């Protein structure tokens, strides 16, 4: 425990500052940079987009797949995201509005068949997304806007958990992730899991459980914020999204 209460403030700022925004990268003239940015954005948004199309536009499984593929393919080809203006709202809202517009146009013109046959198809796990929809049907009390946000949070946290697992494995520190998974991700609400019971289960001291879980949570938070930094365009949007996602004060 640090007793020095006079100088804790510099350390309090834990938000990532060096990460380049994928939103800006997706608008770049540099092809490689643009592709990098688009890949990050697609990673974060394809699943919310797919589920949103299924729900909002009542699209069938197959149509939603085509529309989601088409939307992101078009985003790559036509530089959809280049038109984003940060002063007009969050990137998340922009993506949803673009998606709505794209789907409306596609449905109106029945133009899916016109898409160029040679267009690159993205490798997206639609079966997995469909399975998720079946596992947890949308909450009817949530608006579609909220639903898109909820799915965005789920996607972002899912990516962060996966990265946490990879990073722990790369550092040869599997146990913090395993404890995190056991305590935070897999715990049955009725299960009386405690630090002591975990310590017994993994044959380590309870203090080590405390420290490993603290490490994993800290890393998880760092990764979430880094990812959020990547998929927002500026500091203000980042702060607003962080507040909406984590309840972090801006």
């Amino acid at each position, binding site marked *: 425990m640090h007793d020095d209460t006079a100088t804790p403030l510099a350390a309090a*700022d834990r938000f990532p500052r060096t990460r380049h925004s994928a939103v800006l990268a997706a608008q770049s003239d540099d092809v490689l940079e643009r592709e990098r940015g688009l890949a990050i954005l697609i990673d974060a948004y394809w699943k919310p987009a797919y589920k949103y199309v299924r729900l909002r536009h009542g699209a069938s499984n197959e149509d939603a797949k085509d529309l989601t593929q088409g939307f992101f393919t078009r985003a790559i080809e036509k530089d959809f995201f280049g038109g984003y203006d940060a002063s007009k709202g969050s990137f998340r809202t922009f993506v949803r509005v673009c998606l709505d517009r794209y789907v409306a146009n596609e449905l109106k013109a029945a133009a899916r068949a016109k898409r160029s046959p040679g267009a690159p198809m993205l490798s997206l796990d639609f079966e997995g997304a469909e399975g998720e929809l079946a596992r947890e049907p949308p909450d009817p009390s949530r608006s579609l806007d909220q639903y898109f946000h*909820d799915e965005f949070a789920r996607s972002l946290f899912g990516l962060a958990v996966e990265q946490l697992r990879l990073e722990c494995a790369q550092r040869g520190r599997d146990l913090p992730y395993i404890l995190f998974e056991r305590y935070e991700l897999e715990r049955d609400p009725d299960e009386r899991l405690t630090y002591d019971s975990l310590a017994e289960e993994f044959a380590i001291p309870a203090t080590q459980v405390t420290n490993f879980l603290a490490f994993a949570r800290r890393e998880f938070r760092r990764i979430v914020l880094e990812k959020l930094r990547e998929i927002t365009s500026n500091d203000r949007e980042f702060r607003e999204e962080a507040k909406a996602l984590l*309840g972090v*004060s801006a």
Partner: protein
Amino acid sequence: MRWLSSATVEHLRRVAEWPDLADTKYRVLEELGRGGMGAVYLADDTVLGRKVALKVVATGVSDPAAAERMLREARIIARLEHPGIVPVHDAGALPDGRVFYAMKRVDGARLDTLAPEMPLAERLRVFQRVCDAVAFAHAHGVIHRDLKPDNVMVGAFGEVLVMDWGIARLLASAADDPSARPPALRGTAAGSVMGTLSYMAPEQAAGESTVAPAADVYALGGILYFLLTGRPPFEGEAAQARALPGGADEPPLPPRRASDGVPPALEALVLRAMAAAPEARYRSAEELSAEVSRYLDGERVLAHRETPLEGARRFFGKYRTAILLVAAYLVVRGAMLFFFRR
């Protein structure tokens, strides 16, 4: 990629904000609540083997002011050792840099949720305990500045605790003592309005820098208003309008119009405590508490000019037992005289 249920996503939202307690003597157990400044967690103090409430500033988004306010709050509470003010055990910075302080864990409920279940006399006694704690703080040069029912906890054993001293301010005389001076008074400098508009004194809403104990007396009047009517003195748009210049000078809807059954004497007491001009209010929390005592004891409340009928009712209420006994005696005596004369 792993699928996360909505419950897990919700849990992770909280977990991402959980304080980093590595290498500390604390072990976080659950989140108890969350406010604008940070969150409060139930934690185990593994050295002393007791549960504590850990208040931790929200993950800092370059907001040193929030961290400074948290430290100032801890320091202010630490100087107020009173049964009505939750004691601080420890304060500092966590390994992740976030400022925290540990305080006694209070097992109980907030006054705003508990009050509807309490009889009037009990509500008034709780209110007096709040007045006592606030009077103690004033005597030590501290103004709370955000008194409201939500910031009062009633413990399982009847203890009443005034919480959330996050925007409390030291009076000039107390702040002049260098040993007690908080790291910054900048967070509550002139012109910045902090607090809760529904209960806020007009001078505080106007951002005046010379907020005095009278502002807390006004808010205490607001708490009493809530305890009598079940609603804050100002709600919705009326509360928001108080942020406008001069908007907070309007008096609240009189309690007797806001709710049935409010005694006129208590209404008068509320309206005096909530007078727009500070000098028209009770001079102190003790004075306000003394008025409540008068009401509870069946004495005349100074703020209220009662009608003869009200006076008679009060007199009957105060001496009901004696009056009934005398009446019973007279009836029996009369009956005896009547029968023996026959």
